[in-house]
């Protein structure tokens, strides 16, 4: 069974979803929770079975699908992807568990299960086309969730979300086809297998073009400035669960893909585009943080804040060294946890007041102390307080990029200031002061069902903030191999210089370790 654990992880939820049509409407929630829990347990099992010392792919499966055109069903997992999978399983679980009473809940839960299939699929796929299949497929359930359960502008938002991402990924598809063609020219046979592509060394100009092609697909998904405008609409209109999954997992597809495709395939191009992308990332960080500060709708604040954080992730990714990339991957998980939690929290108040406008609140700390406390913890995590999960990620990402450029890092570091500004402002508006609105006077504090979702998140936030090693270790192992691969593949002097060669560094590491003790 362990040999096929990944396929099980992918297709179990979908299968369960199909069977779910049979389940009675009243007990569908328990069914969904059960399925999601099993999936989560399987994911945990994957973690325990995972060998931390191996840097390469594990639990690989290969099934011939279209051998004549080099398309095969290849899946595998390494330190980079594993935790995001676990996160996806986890969020689907608590998402379903914390689901309030929504209209036709049955469709919702089945859709969520299908969505889970696509999410897991994206992160384990090792064949470009398979990756693309899941990548595109993930749009459909999200489209439905936003469009069917969303707010007044839901149709506009969902269609925009779909088409924008769709357009971007079609360009990416062209890029993939080119990549396969180059492989065909080099080796005389078609292949879309990622591990085959890794062995391919392309001339720089090709790398640049292909990098751009892939960039469109990924950047829109992330979403990077200036392709980010679909996100606020999607978040603003989506139901709570939709925003949670979107922020926690779907956005990570983009950044994950950068690490999985762009960096190892086009090391020279990555170096070439490092500064432009870093600048974009910095614009994301500061500009969106300012936009977030201007918002009146707390959900929009969180939405823009997640764009801002994605900027830091991008920056860490393009640090092109172990510290930065590990940091960005860790930050993906961290941001998943924190922003997911924040969206859940916004959902909590939305369920009670049916508004997200901050001027409707104020003094909530008096009436909902528990809620205020959890919100406070999550806010501080999102601001990047040490000993919370976010800090580790941000610290490492910035630290990593500092090696590439001092001044840009200094600018990016402004994140910790502007982030604090909009978050504290929002918190002040919502929780501090006296209760002015009559309807806020006796709001019920968070109930059990919501705590089920929130408490685990708080625990993770603190635990991984204090002791990130169990996650950081495997990530580090895999990232080191990626960086080494990039260094060996790179052809330009610049790239050789920028991307550290770990085989040499080992000695230095030793000395620094000695220095440490």
């Amino acid at each position: 069974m362990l040999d096929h654990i990944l396929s099980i992880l992918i297709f179990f939820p979908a299968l369960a979803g199909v069977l779910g049509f049979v389940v009675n409407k009243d007990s569908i929630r328990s069914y969904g929770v059960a399925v999601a829990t099993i999936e989560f347990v399987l994911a945990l099992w994957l973690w325990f079975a995972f060998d931390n010392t191996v840097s390469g792919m594990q639990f690989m499966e290969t099934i011939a699908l279209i051998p004549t055109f080099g398309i095969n069903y290849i899946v595998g997992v390494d330190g980079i992807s594993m935790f995001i999978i676990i996160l996806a399983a986890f969020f689907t679980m608590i998402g379903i568990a914390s689901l309030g009473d929504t209209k036709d809940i049955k469709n919702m839960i089945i859709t969520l299960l299908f969505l889970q299939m696509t999410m897991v699929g994206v992160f384990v796929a090792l064949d470009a086309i398979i990756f693309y299949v899941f990548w595109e497929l993930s749009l459909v359930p999200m489209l439905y969730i936003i469009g069917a359960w969303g707010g007044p502008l839901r149709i506009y938002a969902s269609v925009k979300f779909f088409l924008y991402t769709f357009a971007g990924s079609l360009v990416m598809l062209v890029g993939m086809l080119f990549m396969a063609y180059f492989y065909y020219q080099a080796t005389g046979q078609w292949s879309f297998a990622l591990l085959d592509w890794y062995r391919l060394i392309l001339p720089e100009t090709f790398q640049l073009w292909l990098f751009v092609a892939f960039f469109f697909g990924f950047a829109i998904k992330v979403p990077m400035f200036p392709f980010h405008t679909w996100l606020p609409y999607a978040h603003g209109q989506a139901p709570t669960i939709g925003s949670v999954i979107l922020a926690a997992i779907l956005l990570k597809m983009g950044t994950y893909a950068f690490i999985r495709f762009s960096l190892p395939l086009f090391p020279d191009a990555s170096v070439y585009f490092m500064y432009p992308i870093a600048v974009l990332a910095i614009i994301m960080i500061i500009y969106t943080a300012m936009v977030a500060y201007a918002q009146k709708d707390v959900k929009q604040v969180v939405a823009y804040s997640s764009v801002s954080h994605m900027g830091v992730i991008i920056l860490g990714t393009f640090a092109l060294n172990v510290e930065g990339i590990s940091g960005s991957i860790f930050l993906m998980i961290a941001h998943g946890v924190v922003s997911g939690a924040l969206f859940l929290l916004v959902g909590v108040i939305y369920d009670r007041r049916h508004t997200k406008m901050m001027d409707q609140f104020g003094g909530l700390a008096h009436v909902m102390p528990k809620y205020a406390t959890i919100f406070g913890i999550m806010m501080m995590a999102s601001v990047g307080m040490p000993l919370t999960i976010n800090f580790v990620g941000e610290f490492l990402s910035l630290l990593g990029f500092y090696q590439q450029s001092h001044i840009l890092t200094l600018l990016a570091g402004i994140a910790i200031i502007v982030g604090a500004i909009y978050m504290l402002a929002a918190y002040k508006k919502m929780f501090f002061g006296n209760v002015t609105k009559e309807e806020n006077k006796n709001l019920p504090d968070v109930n059990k069902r919501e705590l089920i979702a929130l408490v685990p998140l708080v625990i993770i936030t603190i635990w991984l903030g204090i002791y990130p090693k169990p996650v950081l270790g495997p990530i580090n192992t895999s990232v080191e191999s990626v960086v080494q691969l990039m260094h060996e593949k790179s052809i330009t002097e610049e790239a050789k210089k920028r991307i550290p060669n770990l085989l040499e560094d080992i000695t230095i590491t030793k000395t620094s370790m000695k220095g440490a003790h």
Partner: protein
Amino acid sequence: MLSPVNISMESLNLITLAPMLIPVVGALLIIIMDLFKSEQDKSLYVMISLLILGIDFMALLESAGVFAKDGTVMGVFDVMMIDGLAILSQFIIVVASMLFIPLALSKSRFSEYAYAEFFALFLFMIAGFQFMVSTDNLILVFVGLETASLALYTLIAMHNRDKSFEAAVKYFTMGALAAGFYSFGAMVFYALTGSVEINQIASVLSDNNYADIGFVLVGVVFMLASFGFKLSMVPFHTWTPDVYEGSSSALAGYMSIVPKIAAFVVAMRLFEFLIHSGVVWLEVVLYALVVITMTMANIWALVQQDVKRMLAYSSISHAGFVMAAILIGTTQANSALFFYWILFSVTNLGSFSMLWISRQKKLPSGQQSDHSFDKFSGLAKTSPLAASIMALFMLSLAGLPPFALFWGKMYMISAAVTGGYTVLALIMALNSAIAGYYYLKLIVYMFMKDPIIVHNADISAVNATNAIKTIVGVAVIGTIFAFLTVNSLLEFVTSFVYNSGY
């Protein structure tokens, strides 16, 4: 004093005629039956035509086997040419027809199916198309083309509603013009080379290496015009939406597939050699035609209020998309053409059959046309299954993986990439994005809006019978599980195309 003509029957090789003769015989059979006992139920004729098509299919398998063994076969004074393209296209034609015929078994009665002639004409049409694709003799192409077209005009008209007559007239008139263009073009080539066989024309032209290119181009222009009409290339496309709207959904779906593939094959035979012998002009013009057709058709589809017209425009743009294969002209591209078209026919037949299923006899109040978008609003609430199936076809048409058409699109774009048409590849990709909008529009109506029009019956079943449901089911399975068949399909198609030298 003429010497007596003596020709050995072997050299005639009449077996090559078999696939075309079978439907003709079948048609005659039906007519005779009608003579003996008229006013029989349509189901009889449906089943007979189905059987005949089945036999036809067998014959095709036979000739396929022959081709696989010893390549292209010429016959009947070398007029017939049974090569890979012919066989592949005939497969598509016959199978599509077999999928189409059962749609006649609709719940509500429609006048055309009452006549035996309908089915007879239908079979004649198939024969016509088969002739058209399995020859490289311009005369025979012309004959086949016209046989098919004339039959088709009549079939449209038999739907017996104002719009369908209008559609028939329009189609007919423009068809006549196209015929004129065709014959003129053929005349020019004949004048230039003294032959009407494409491969001889090719050889002659290349011998005097395109001395008077100007006249060649004149011929090419007229050919382009007439096939542009058949393939509904912009600006020769104007008939398409009206005719689709005028004719019954089932027939519209059929028209979006079968006549086109036949025309594609001829166009391929005719233009490939010109492009390969480096007629830059043709390359440029085709490039322009392809891009314009794809893009404009998509743009017009955006603004449609009626699903059927929307699908009409979408099929125009699909045709343009596939036309790129002829421009690219590599083996991969040519096989991509057939590959794409097979997958396309599955999906498109499916979607048109869904329209056919939901076809009311008379319009409820507030519904402008047979298949206006409003009609489908909130369908997910009333009949989720139908809505999901329709959505599935839409997604497939939009090229969303892993549904059928995605693989076609992917392979076609890849062909463009390998053929060195990078920009074209990008344009094709982005067009799929534009197309996404109007396919999504229907999904939005079905899943995200509340019912606008009150239907007295469940519209997803007003016209449904088991036969139609079966067809839809076939289409659904074909669409979802395409990825299992893709590999063998590719190998099959590629080998046939390659062995017939394209």
